[in-house]
Structures are given as C-alpha cells and as structure tokens.
C-alpha cells in the first residue's frame, strides 16, 4: 500500500513531497506493526508457561526442626500462590510432625506460641526420610531417574518452565550437608544446573539457599538465566530466629522467617519485583548479610515479578468465537454381558488348612549340576580312594 501511494504521489506532486509522504506512510505502517508486536510481546514477556518448585530440607534429627519448618513455609507460600502439588517436589529429610518428641503431633509451627501451622492438612511430601540424598537430588534436577519412578517424584520441566529451587540445612564454605552423612559441593550443583540448561530443562531458575555461608554455593554457577539468593556471605553464619518453650527447639531461621513474612503479603496479582526480594532481611534483622547474584540473569531484576517464580500465574485470553465439535461421541457399549451360565462356583479358600500344610511337598527346585566345590570334593575322595586301594581292586567293588 505504501508503494502504491508513493507512486500516486509521484504522479501528482513534486519529487521531495513525494518522498516525504512516502516516508511518513511507511513510518506509520511500521509503528502500527511494532505496537501490535509489543502488545503480543507483553503478553508473553516473561517467557515462561509453567512453574515448578523443588524444595529441599537436608537435615535430620529433632534439633533441626527449624529446617523442616523453613521448607514447609516456602511450600505453603508457593502452594498458596498457585503452584499445584503435581509441580512441587518436596524433600524432607526427617519427619518432625509425627516425631514422638513433638508435643503437638501432625503440626509444624513457624511462629512462637504456635500461631501458624505450616504443615497443614493437605501436604504431599515426595521424598522423605532416607530418600533425601545427594544422588536423588541431582537425579531429580537432571531428570535421570529410574523408569519406575512415579510422576509425583519427577521434575518434568521443559524449556518454558520457571523453576524455584530452595535449599536449607547446615552448610559451609562451598558445600551443603545432607543428612549428616554426605555433602554436595558448589561445583556439583553448578554442573547440575549446566546439565539442566543443556537439556533445556528450564527457562529461568531462581535459587534460594538458607544455610551458613550460603553465598559460597552460588559462586560457581556458569549457566545463563540463573538468579541466586543466599542468607549469608562466606565467613558468616545464618542464625535461627526464636525458640518455642513448649516445643523446645528453635522454630525457624531468620532469613526464611522474614522471607515468609514478605511472601504472606504477596497475592497472585501482585506486582512486586525481585528488587523487593533482595531487600528482605537486612543486616539489622538477620545479623548475617544476605547476598544475591544476578549477573547470569538476562532480564533486569526490576522487571521480574515475584509471582514469576513463586506463583503459577496463567494468562488467559477470552475469545467469542464458536468452536465446531466433531461428530457425536458414542459411549462404548459394555461388551455383551456373558450370557453363558457360569457353571463353576467360586469359593473362598481355607485360611489355615492344617492337613494341607503338613503334607505340603517341598517346592521342586530345578536341578542344577553340582557346584565346583562339590565336584572338587568328590574328585579328592576318588583320588584318595584310588591311591590307597589301587585300580585293580576296583573290580571287587563294581
């Protein structure tokens, strides 16, 4: 259309006017296209279509109650903001709720005076107890699980998934302790994330760690699109928040306590971005210095919404078009009911048929040729026999 107009103007007006007009029309056309692109772009600006969360508590024993409470508070926030259980892989290394030391069974509290029960009534723990190992954690991340693993234990993410990974427990400079018997190093973790990137298992990844010297765990990351937060720098300890005198242990760690308070104010439509998350728990409250790393992340943290990782926001487009259904669906008939009269009657079996059991023949095992040891033994006996008695005496025996 632009060319046609320019041709028309060439005929009717002078050269420079014609050029000017053509340029203006082209500009308007392009602007229109770009605007259209922008609205469509805004629609898919975050680039992800589904959300996953992997929440891991790595500590065992009753005095590490606070680590389980940490993980369950993040679980609760993430569920509240929309991520369903099928998209959450929750790993708890020990059971605190039904532990015999717990004065209020089936509860895990995060606030003193038992204000908030983060365990709730509808919790689905995918890996529990001895199953929480470094190997299982890395297998979940990379997707290399045995074929018989059920779906709820798998991280079935694709290249349009935003994944939230939360780790808590006891850690040190460059490692995180799993269950008092093994540890995962920051190099292993960085390599696992690189594997995930190469297999296109994530679109963007948010890594949060709440342990002592947590910042050392994200030092070695080298894959794109990872944003990391830690509760303390190298050389600092993350401290716990408050003990409860009735339960007798510390209930939460400081960083996650203030993180939970921050997340309680977020709702699925909130527009808070990552810069607010970086401000959670300043040194005055946390005693340690929380750190973050955004150099590997392509977008500006100010444009990343909290709900991009913690929630599962679906964008919908309403259409007024009518959809044509296919041919009517016929329900499958339930097969011709077996009309033939069943001659045999079924019956229950005797639960303890004493006479049958007593006269039970032992199972006929398959016959195997004699083992090497037995063969050697028989050979030795025969040799000794021939040695003592000589061959010519054999005729008396056979």
């Amino acid at each position: 259309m632009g060319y046609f107009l320019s041709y028309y103007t060439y005929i009717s007006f002078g050269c420079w006017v014609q050029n000017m007009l053509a340029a203006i029309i082209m500009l308007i056309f392009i602007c229109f296209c770009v605007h259209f692109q922008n609205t469509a772009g805004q629609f898919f600006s975050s680039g992800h279509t589904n959300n996953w969360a992997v929440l891991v508590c790595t500590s065992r024993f009753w005095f590490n109650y606070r680590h389980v409470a940490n993980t369950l508070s993040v679980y609760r926030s993430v569920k509240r903001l929309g991520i369903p259980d099928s998209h959450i892989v929750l790993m708890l290394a020990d059971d605190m709720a039904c532990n015999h030391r717990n004065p209020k069974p089936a509860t895990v509290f995060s606030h003193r005076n038992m204000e908030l029960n983060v365990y709730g009534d509808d919790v689905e723990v995918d890996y529990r107890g001895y199953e929480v190992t470094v190997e299982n954690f890395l297998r979940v991340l990379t997707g290399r699980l045995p074929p018989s693993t059920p779906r709820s234990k798998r991280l079935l993410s694709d290249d349009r998934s935003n994944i939230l990974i939360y780790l808590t427990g006891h850690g040190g400079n460059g490692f995180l302790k799993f269950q008092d018997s093994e540890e995962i190093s920051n190099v292993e973790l960085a390599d696992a994330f690189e594997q995930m990137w190469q297999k296109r298992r994530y679109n963007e990844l948010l890594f949060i760690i709440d342990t002592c010297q947590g910042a050392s765990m994200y030092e070695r990351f080298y894959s794109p699109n990872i944003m990391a937060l830690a509760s303390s720098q190298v050389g600092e300890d993350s401290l716990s928040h408050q003990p409860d005198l009735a339960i007798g242990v510390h209930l939460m760690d400081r960083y996650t306590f203030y993180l939970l308070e921050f997340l309680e104010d977020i709702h699925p439509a909130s527009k808070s971005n990552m810069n607010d998350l970086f401000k959670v728990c300043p040194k005055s409250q946390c005693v340690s210095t929380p750190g973050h790393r955004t150099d590997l992340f392509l977008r500006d943290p100010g444009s990343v919404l909290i709900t991009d990782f913690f929630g599962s926001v679906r964008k919908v487009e309403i259409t007024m078009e009518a959809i044509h259904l296919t041919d009517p669906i016929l329900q499958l008939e339930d097969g011709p009911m077996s009309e033939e009269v069943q001659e045999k009657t079924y019956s229950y079996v005797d639960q303890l048929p004493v006479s049958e059991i007593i006269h039970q023949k032992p199972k006929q095992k398959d016959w195997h040729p004699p083992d090497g040891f037995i063969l050697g033994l028989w050979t030795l006996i025969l040799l000794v026999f021939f040695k003592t008695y000589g061959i010519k005496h054999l005729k008396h025996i056979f």
Partner: protein
Amino acid sequence: MHSYFWLLIGRWEATEVDEAALGDSAADKLGVRASDTFVLTPTPQPKDDFQEELVIRPLHSGDIYASFQFRTLWETDFMRENKVSHYRLFPKSLGQVISKFSVRELHISFTQGYWRTMQWGQPFLPSPPGAELWVWFQDSVTDVDAAWKELTNVLSGIFCASLNFIDSTNTVQPSASFKPLGIVNETDHRFLRYATLPREIVCTENLTPWKKLLPCGSKAGLAVLLKSEKLFHSSFFSQTVHIRPVCQDRECKTTSWELRQTLNVVFDLHTSGQGKREWSLFKMFSRTLTEACPLASSSKIYIDVTDNPQEEYFELSPATPLLSQAVVLGDRRTFSVYDLTQQVTFGTVRSLNLLIRWKSTEGDMLRPLLHAERYVAGYGLQTGEIHTVMYNNHPFRSFPVLLLDSVPWYLRLYIHTLTVTSKGKDNTPSYIHYQPSKDRMRPHLLEMLVQLPPHSVTEVTVQFERALLKWTEYTPDPNHGFYVGSSVISALVPSSVAMDTNITQEQPLFSSFFPCKEESSYFVRVYTEPLLVNLPTPDFSMPYNVICLTCTVVAVGYGSLYNLLTRSFQIEEPNPRLAKKIANFIRRIRGVPLLS
C-alpha cells in the same frame, strides 16, 4: 445437590430433534446441527456400591477404640482387553494399578504404634507397626519380581511413602501363611509376595491421599471426622487398603471387586486431657457429624454395649432404639446402632455428637485367647538370641498356629539352635519351612506350624550373630539401631459362639472381613513387636582422621627428608651499603673493576 446430578450415567446418542424445538438463533450460535443434539437416558442401576461404618468400642483401661470401615463393591472385570475407563465410586488410581500389574489381591497398611493385645483385646483388623504390603498376582504374570518392583514404586507415589525401599532384601515369599482372602481357584505361592518396612513413619502426607480415595473424600459422611491433628495424637493409628475379589451372592457365580479402606485408632485417656472418663465424638475428633455421604448406600455407627446391658457402667447419649448383634472375634457382641441415612438421627440440632459417660470403673475384660511377644536376649554386639513367646489362654482346647518370621540378612540365624518348648517340654512343629538368607540379597524366612497346648506358654528361641556391614550400607543414623520386622502368627482359634458362615447375610463390615469356613473357630492374625537391634557401628570420622594423619606424616617426614637430600647450599653475599652501591655504579660506567 450437584452430586446427585453426576450420579446419572448418560448414554450419548445422536437423535433427531425438531428444528422448531431449538431456538434458531441458539442453534446458529452454537454452530451445531440441530439433528445432532444429545439426549441423556439413564442406564439401569449402577453396578457399584459404597458403604461406610464406624465402630466404637470403649476399652477397660479407659481408652477408646474407633474403627472406620469404608467399602466399595464394583462388578467389573479389570483383566479384559478393553481397558476400564469409566470410574465412578472406585478410585481410578487403584483401578489402573490393578489392571496394569495384574493384581489379584492387594493389602497395604500403614501403622503408627503397637497394638497392646492384653490391654485392648483383639483388633478387628490387625496390622504391624510401620508399613506392610502383601500382594497376590494373577496366574498370567510371567515375571512376578519385576511386577512387584514396579508395583511398590507406583504405590510409593500414590501414598507418599518410601515403599520404594522394598526390594529383594526385605521381600519374602511365604509358603503357607497369607492365603488369599478373596475368591480364588487355586493357590500357588509363587504369585505371593510379602514385605514389611518397620521403620516407616505415618503422618498427614499418608492420610491425605488415603482420604482422597474415598468417593466423598473428606467432605461428607464419616470421613469428616478424620482430622490429622487428633488422629495422630493417639496411642495407635493404622490405615489400610484391601482390594480383593469377593462373591456377589450366595451362589457365588459372579464376583465383584471389593475395596476396603479401614482406619483404626485408639485414643488415650490421659493424653487427650482432663483425665475424666468421658468420651464424645467432639472430644475424639474435634468434629461432629452432620450428614451421611450421599453416595453411600449405608452409613452407620456401632457402639459396643455388650458389657453394659443395664447401663450400669456407662451412659450413652443420644439414646437410640436400634440394637444389633453380631458375632465378631468369637464372641457375640451387642451394638447400639445410629443410622446416619435417617434424618431423625441428627435430631433438631442437625448434628450428631455421641457422648459416652462412665459411671463406674469396674468390669472384667474378656481375655484374648492368643497373644504373642518377642524380644532379643543376650549382651554385646556380636551374638544374641531372639525369643518369641506365644500364649494360649484357652482353658482346655489346643489349636495350631502358623508362625512366620522374616529376619534381615545382617542377623545371621543359626537354625541348629532353634528350639520350641511348651510347658518346659520340647514341642516339635509339624511343618517347618526355612529359606536361608543370602548376604545383601534376601532375608531369612522361617515358617513353622506349632500346636499350642491348652493354657500354656510356648517359647521359640533361635540364636544369631550380627554381621558387620560395609560402611556405605549404614543409614545416616546408625546408632538408632536396625529394625527387624514383626513376626506374624496366623491361627484358627476356637470360638465360644457359633460363627456365621453365611457370607451374604447383611453383616456389619467389621465382622465380615475374614472369610469363615467353619462355625467352631475363627481366623485371627497376631503381630508381635518389631525388634530394634544394634549392629556394630564404626566411627564414621575415622577415614577423615586417617587421611589427615597420613598426609601430615607424609608431608612432614618425607618432605623434610627430601629437602635435606636434594637441597644444595650456596654462600650468599651480604647486601652492600648505599655509598658502596653508588660507587660501584659509577665504576661500572667508567668500566673500572668494582669494589668488593
């Protein structure tokens, strides 16, 4: 109301409908041809049925025993070629498990706590502490072990439990125990697998998927009472799932699949606060009942009032005129019945809160005829002895019991030291089946048929030696100890009352679980305690200590020696003073020999 809507099963057919009947504009908007409209015709009566029941039995120690039973019956065939796809009351996850793995019977239980037979009597459905799974596969399965492995993984996903730890080191194949509880043609024990996980913890994450299997979920009916905060604050909690084929009617020409979900809980008098001997539904479950499950054909509560005929021990309110008698566990018991499908049960307040108030604390408990204990004797961390003690409290009848013991491979049993004594004398078992263990591959299996003399104590002892595990095989908390699963004692106990062998008479669910073939005895299964044994545990910091020490010694010793041997010494000139430096510099420029 909407629950009644989806009860109608529709058959979709294309029918001709007048164009005038449908508004033209509506037809055009929908873009459907008027000739293709759908008509719902209700099918003949549905082939599945759901019943729920709660039995409350006050115990003599002041505790109270509540047993929930939910049963779904469905006449269908999971084994046919066309996969079953329309599930109504039967949960789809379990139906798919049955058809995919060709399961004939499945019994799984999760238990927290140990059932104290001497104080509480016999339970309606026994279960051992931890998790227990036993499965009968169909005759068509070729590789039972592979199917068993996949089945345990799938069930661990469904119930959020670590059932994937069941492998060949804790699976056994009993040769005489655990006969099928459902309909069967013949029993070949090659298709049976049994495993226990005594260490398994039960918590809300196991209860939640169990509740989701119920047709009404936990929204209506008796399942609203199942709140985890109260259920786990108890002395004993057990949830089970049993799937088996049963007879549909007396002739038993057709079978249907039965899914039973049971939940047994014993509430402790003192931990529930107050200490007053008064129980109510609200005190036990922190809820009251307001309606029955609309999908249930029967919904009843039974309170055991046999010991209270004239209301001299406890008082039950609200009063109910319905009474029923049932023969359960060899005894004729009387029950007060509350029928939740009748609106009158809920009274004017539209909620039912049963109240049981004690007046006096006397009364005699019926002593259980059979119970068993097990313990480890010996000292030190090398050897030990397992003692299993079985008590027969019947005054004049003796009966046979089948003892099943599955001991992990790291306790090396010496079967030549096996002794069975009753009343001080040797008691030879009439049947022994022993399968020795293979290190790291399979456990010991010991099955014995022992005749227990009347009014006697029978003791089975066997010595063992503890093995030293490889250091990677220890759990992260090895000083806690290692568990040995409970022994299972199956017996046909003589009954004082004639048992009912009529399988199809309207019996309450709790009395019709074990099939009864003869009138004079009833089948009972008793589980002993699991054992906790300490294995010799190494000090896990030793590898680190050894590496540090060795490296230090090598570095200090060898390093010094190497330096001494290979270092050469040279004389070094001392640094010249500044004036001398400048003088040497000028001399160098002039080309004159330097000062020393």
